[in-house]
């Protein structure tokens, strides 16, 4: 059921170069299981996950609370081990490495934790500098670099504080700074922005994008916020109950979600349900639901229908979203007029929009 980029809609897929070829895979999940023993039988946090994260891509995983996202991301840097299957980081099975090898592999990654996990007794600056200190960087240099990164995340003036003196969002940004201070090859984000307000989120997303573009860092993002996927990711996988239920380019999943759960997430950005307000109008005439991509969005569709096809058009619902470099629109219109003109309008729309369907009472 996971789809490959091959059948994705628009021409230029924004997926990272060379995706799909095993050589360019940064992280490969190969039939991964994770079971927890529990009084009442086993709990399956991961239930046979197979997934390739292309090198240099920004890859998002979305799913409901408890779907297994944190469990999945913790496999990538060996914090957790599969009870079945393999996780390959740059082609290496982490479980096969000796301790020193595992540590070397971990040093190529950076991780932002859902619950921050900062040292409470150490200044913000020293928290951020810590990974460098581990590498033997001189304290001065490590601190200087930490200050640089703190500036990046908008905490230039908070270096001297202890985490306990920061707000929730500030703590999260310290965690982000710590994760990127080493310029990791793979950056793992577990809800990296869930404690942040939208404008800080936007900044952080900008920052992550810049890191990806500048250093080719593979970013593996686990989140419950579709906005993060929309603005940041190239590919997205949808998780449910420990399984990947859908997978494709972000645009693809947004425009044509295949599963109900994907549709629900997409709906938080581009509503998929028909607002109650609109439903009141069902029966007044034909209600059509259109999905538009890119130029279709800015072309004068309504104008054309009215002037060229002589039908009356009322836009009952419309919204638009920028997804990656694409605009995706969604409209529900009521079309009135003589049957033949309405039919002609339908035919014209069919070949001029991404998708069109009649709205019927649910």
């Amino acid at each position: 059921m996971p789809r490959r980029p091959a059948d994705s809609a628009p021409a230029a897929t924004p997926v990272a170069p060379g995706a799909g070829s095993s050589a360019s895979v940064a992280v490969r999940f190969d039939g991964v299981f994770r079971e927890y023993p529990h009084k009442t039988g086993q709990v399956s946090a991961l239930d046979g996950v197979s997934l390739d994260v292309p090198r240099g891509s920004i890859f998002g995983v979305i799913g409901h609370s408890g779907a297994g996202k944190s469990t999945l991301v913790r496999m990538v840097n060996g914090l957790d081990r599969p009870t079945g299957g393999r996780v390959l980081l740059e082609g290496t099975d982490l479980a096969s490495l000796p301790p020193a090898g595992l540590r070397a592999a971990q040093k190529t990654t950076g991780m932002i934790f859902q619950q921050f996990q900062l040292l409470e007794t150490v200044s913000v600056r020293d928290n951020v500098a810590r990974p460098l200190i581990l590498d033997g960087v001189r304290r001065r240099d490590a601190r200087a670099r930490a200050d640089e990164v703190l500036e990046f995340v908008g905490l230039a003036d908070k270096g001297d504080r202890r985490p306990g003196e920061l707000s929730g969002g500030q703590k999260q940004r310290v965690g982000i700074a710590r994760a990127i201070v080493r310029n990791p090859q793979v950056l793992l984000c577990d809800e990296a922005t869930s404690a942040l307000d939208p404008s800080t989120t936007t900044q952080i997303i900008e920052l992550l994008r810049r890191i990806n573009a500048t250093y080719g860092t593979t970013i593996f993002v686990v989140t419950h916020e579709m906005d993060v996927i929309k603005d940041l990711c190239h590919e997205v996988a949808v998780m449910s109950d420990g399984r990947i239920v859908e997978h494709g380019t972000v645009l693809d999943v947004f425009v044509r979600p295949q599963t109900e759960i994907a549709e629900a997430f997409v709906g938080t950005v581009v509503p998929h349900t028909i607002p109650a307000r609109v439903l009141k109008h069902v029966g007044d005439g034909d209600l059509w639901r259109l999905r538009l991509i890119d130029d279709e969005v800015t072309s004068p569709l309504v104008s054309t229908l009215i002037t060229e096809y002589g039908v009356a058009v009322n836009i009952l619902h419309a919204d638009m979203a920028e997804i990656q470099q694409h605009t995706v629109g969604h409209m529900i219109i009521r079309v009135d007029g003589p049957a033949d003109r309405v039919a002609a309008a339908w035919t014209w729309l069919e070949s001029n929009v991404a998708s069109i369907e009649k709205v019927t009472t649910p």
Partner: protein
Amino acid sequence: MTGGSFTLITADQFFKELGVTFYMLGVSLFFGAILGVIIGVIVVVTRPGGALANRVVYTVLDVFINIVRSVPFIILLVAIIPFTRLLVGTSIGPAAAIVPLTVSIAPYIGRLVENSLLEVPHGITEAARSMGATPLQIFTRFLLPEARGSLILALTTATIGLVDATAMAGTVGAGGIGDLAISYGYQRFDGFAMLVTVVTLIIIVQTIQIVGSRLARRARRR
């Protein structure tokens, strides 16, 4: 006392023994703390589920700690006389007292260190591991700073226990304030010596506790 003299001990003697107490305390605390921390750390990392889980090392150390802690100090002192002689060339005097003091305090500190380290939230260790920290680094760079407050309190508790143990060190002719309290205050019924020495001990312990608490509070400040 006899001749009606007020007390049996002289100021000189008092200050000499005070010096001896600090000497025994200082040296055995120094070595005891180093050994204790090492023991505590090894126990924590080798315990089942630890960073370097190793059933054998863990069990051996755990049992060793318990053995040393089981034996009454006076018996430990006698039992390790050959070892003491090997190390410092004699079995008597302050230098010789330091050996059993260290041997008895190290596993105790080890146990307290273990307890402190186990209190550090698991997430901190995880964060450290995610950065590829070695077990040693996990300890020095993550657990140690986070557990610092409770470690200081543990060391404080141990140091105070050590003050008590130095009193017993009088048995090997080591002297010290505690021995003065027992030999003169208790055995020779010298009330003044008793008062002075016990008050001195209280002051020493109180000072250690105040300093320890203050340092811990500072380290704990978040």
